[in-house]
């Protein structure tokens, strides 16, 4: 059942406009356009890029805010999902994987490809990609938990954004530091565990 829900969510992402190509294009545009408006030398592009990828990741996840649970809640599909033979924890895990694959994996793949444009060495590219990989799970889990808790609030995407962005700050602070992947992994693990409880609670509240 877990596999079916995961495949269904991935298929839905593929069918809808939030598919992998859109997210990848969105991220590339952000990383390419912002240096145009920042008055800095070529040598500073490296540090700008390191910050930009985290902003790009955060913005990509914000794009997902009206998709995770909320669209299924609005159209009634959540009624079907919650009456299937699957626990809340597995629903959460399935969402975590599907959202990560849809919104984070394209970025993790693109970053090494475009890092040469920003004069990054191979070592720096590896550090950034590993940091991104480790931190993105925690950021995804945070987005899922907030959505599960607030899915009943119509047109509250701005409120969700305001709640979520401060929670991303620790990931961004450590994300730009080379070799901070153990800290990011720890943060992600904490976020994934806390988010599983928050998501289960949000889904239980759903009927009310």
């Amino acid at each position: 059942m877990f596999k079916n829900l995961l495949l269904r969510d991935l298929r839905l992402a593929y069918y809808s406009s939030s598919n992998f190509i859109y997210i990848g294009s969105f991220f590339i545009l952000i990383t390419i356009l912002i240096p145009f408006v920042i008055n800095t030398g070529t040598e500073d592009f490296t540090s700008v890029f390191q910050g930009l990828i985290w902003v790009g990741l955060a913005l990509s996840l914000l794009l997902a805010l009206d998709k995770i649970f909320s669209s299924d809640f609005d159209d009634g599909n959540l009624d079907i999902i919650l009456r299937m033979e699957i626990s809340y924890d597995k629903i959460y895990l399935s969402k975590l994987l599907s959202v990560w694959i849809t919104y984070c994996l394209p970025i993790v793949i693109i970053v090494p490809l475009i890092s040469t444009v920003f004069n990054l060495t191979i070592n720096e590219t590896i550090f950034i990609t590993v940091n991104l990989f480790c931190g993105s799970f925690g950021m995804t889990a945070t987005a899922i938990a907030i959505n599960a808790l607030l899915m009943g609030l119509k047109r509250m995407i701005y409120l969700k954004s305001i709640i979520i962005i401060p929670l991303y700050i620790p990931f961004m602070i450590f994300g730009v530091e080379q070799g901070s992947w153990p800290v990011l992994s720890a943060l992600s693990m904490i976020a994934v565990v806390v988010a599983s409880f928050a998501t289960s609670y949000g889904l239980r509240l759903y009927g009310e």
Partner: protein
Amino acid sequence: MDYLLAENLSCIRGSNTVFKNLSFKVSRGQILHITGTNGSGKTSLLRMIAGFIDPSDGKIIPEQNYTYKDVHFVGQKYALKKNLSVEKNLSLWSHLYQKKINTDQILSDLDLAQYKNNDTEVLSDGQKRRLSIARLFIHSAPIWLLDEVHVHLDSEWQVKLNQYIYNYTNEGGMVLISSNTKIELNSNIDINLTHYNV
């Protein structure tokens, strides 16, 4: 499961008591028709039986051997993705229910074959309702909980839906259906929730 028994059910939403001391028994092969005015608690009762809401008081029996997976809840929402085609929506449901489906056959039965590749947002409300009923044929469960599913259907399709319900109960299924308009349904038990409002 041979029967579903509700004993002194009460539903309190916020500070309002929606209904109180509601008891009934439905057996296999029977139809329970729930009527009542707007806000009398029809949807709340069905969502309570489906397990989305806990009873404020009273209980639903059997408490054992009854899981919420035994119910097939078709609510007022169509459960359709409006920017996806009719065929893709059916495909998503088949993934959720883990059932292989014959899309052409289902759409033909529902007189929707010509809309197979159209986005569901171009369908009329009646056509969307017909498509949402397709879920009943994709997945089987011992209990159907149907919340105002006759709404938007024309008289011909209301009769067809009733026939689907009769066929299902003749095969041993149990149906709890709500409506706030007059529908020509030969039910075994009728409950007017307005009488249980406080």
